[in-house]
């Protein structure tokens, strides 16, 4: 008899709680995932695919769903990784050894003498930063170039070169002073 009471009581209470939660889940429904937007905003948008995802947004989605670690973005370097760690409240993860912690920014330049006008690079460019048409010489709009280097492999004549972005006095950055006290003894 007492077993019966126990079972009934538990079932009734469980059912009541279930109803309550069911109601709450309708009332507090959440649509979309706003976190993806926030992650995407931190990524450098080079769309280079070096993270193994086809572009920045897919990578953002993968991070948000916990499928990808936060240290896969070489163009963003340590800065992006730290920003992601900060946003998501996770421990920073070291970048792969092969990538610089602070990558130098680059753009590509097309050697106009060699270009054959094959348009392959135009198709590869994720941000439409290459100007030109079939059989016409192509040019990179330096301001639009994200330095993803996706145009380099398709080029049949190897006429695309990487050049570092020039630092002007106006865009120059003061170096962080060396903290001798924190440095190991020489």
């Amino acid at each position, binding site marked *: 008899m007492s077993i019966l009471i126990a079972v009934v009581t538990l079932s009734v209470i469980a059912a009541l709680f279930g109803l309550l939660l069911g109601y709450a889940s309708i009332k507090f429904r959440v649509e979309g995932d706003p976190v993806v937007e926030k992650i995407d905003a931190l990524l450098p948008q080079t769309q280079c695919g070096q993270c193994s995802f086809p572009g920045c947004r897919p990578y953002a989605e993968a991070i948000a769903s916990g499928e990808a670690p936060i240290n896969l973005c070489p163009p963003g370097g340590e800065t992006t990784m730290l920003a992601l760690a900060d946003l998501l409240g996770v421990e920073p993860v070291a970048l792969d050894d092969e990538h610089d912690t602070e990558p130098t920014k680059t753009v590509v330049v097309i050697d106009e003498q060699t270009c054959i006008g094959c348009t392959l690079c135009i198709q590869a460019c994720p941000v439409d930063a290459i100007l030109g048409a079939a059989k016409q010489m192509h040019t990179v709009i330096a301001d639009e170039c994200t330095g993803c280097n996706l145009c380099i492999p398709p080029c049949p004549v190897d006429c695309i070169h990487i050049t570092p972005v020039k630092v002007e006095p106006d865009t120059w950055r003061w170096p962080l002073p060396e903290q*001798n*006290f*924190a440095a*190991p*003894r020489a």
Partner: protein
Amino acid sequence: MRFKTASSPHTTPVSSVNVIMRKVLMAMIPGTAATAYFFGWGVLINICLACVVAISSETLMLYLRKRPMKPYLSDNSALLTACLLAMALPQLAPWWLTVIAVSSAIILGKHLYGGLGFNPFNPAMVGYVIVIISFPKEMTQWVPPAVAGYSQLGFLETLQVIFAGSIPAGMSWDSITMATPLDTMKTQLGLELSINDIHQHKVYGPMFSSVSGVGWEWINGLFLAGGLWLAYKRIIDWRIPAGLLGMLFLLSNSFALYDYSSFTPPTFQLFSGGIMLAAFFIATDPVTASTTIRGRWIFGAGIGFFIFVIRTWGSYPDGIAFAVLLMNMTAPLLDYYTMPRTFGHHWSEFPGHHKKEPEE
């Protein structure tokens, strides 16, 4: 001609860390001398032992952490920690107690956090709390003050007690040690005696003076003098001691007015135990205190508050170390919520002004 480049300002330094620490040590001299006068050789032996342990621990940790030795060993901060801790330990504390306290202060309280400037807790108080919780009995081995007709140990006898743990022939622990006035007051109040009764008491009466405990008013007075000199020299910020002493005065005065027979008067509260040492030398450790003006007031007042609470209702006779550590915990938040208003900004832009902090 070519030149070196550097960031402005291009000026000579006006002060330095080791000078600051040295001045703090200098300001401790009068109070320390008084303590040694009243409590004998043990004080000086403790200080020497603590300094040796502190410097060795510091050297060891710098070596292990592969950090430059010279600037850190000459910054005097380890010596200051050692001296503060030595002043807080009982005079006849066995040598290993001092070693444990000082080494844990320097290693655990300071270097595990990255050494000078990075420790969130006052290292001396970390060391003190560790030993008072671990070895409560040894921490009561205070000696009676020299004036009240109590016998005093000589230098060699003190050495013997501290290092060999053996009491000179013909004496017992009870004859060479006694509870501090604070401790006695607390125990006797707990036995439902009134303050007046305690002052008249045959055994305990002589250890109290009209101000606080015999000798203690001098010790505290001299630490107060040293502290005022530091504040005048702007080595320490006057707001922390002011907040601490002010809060302690306010609380003890209110309670004493409410019931003068079971709450000690402000003079007793302010001039017994290590209050002046705490107010001017311990609480003002800039690394672990709040750094804003309002934060420092709150920081000092908070310590005063907890000292009074622990002294009055807690189990420990003096709560300085606990109070300091408790307020050390709040320092990062205090700094954040008491930011000064930046020039050209409106108050509403600052934390704590547009939103309320839930727990503070």
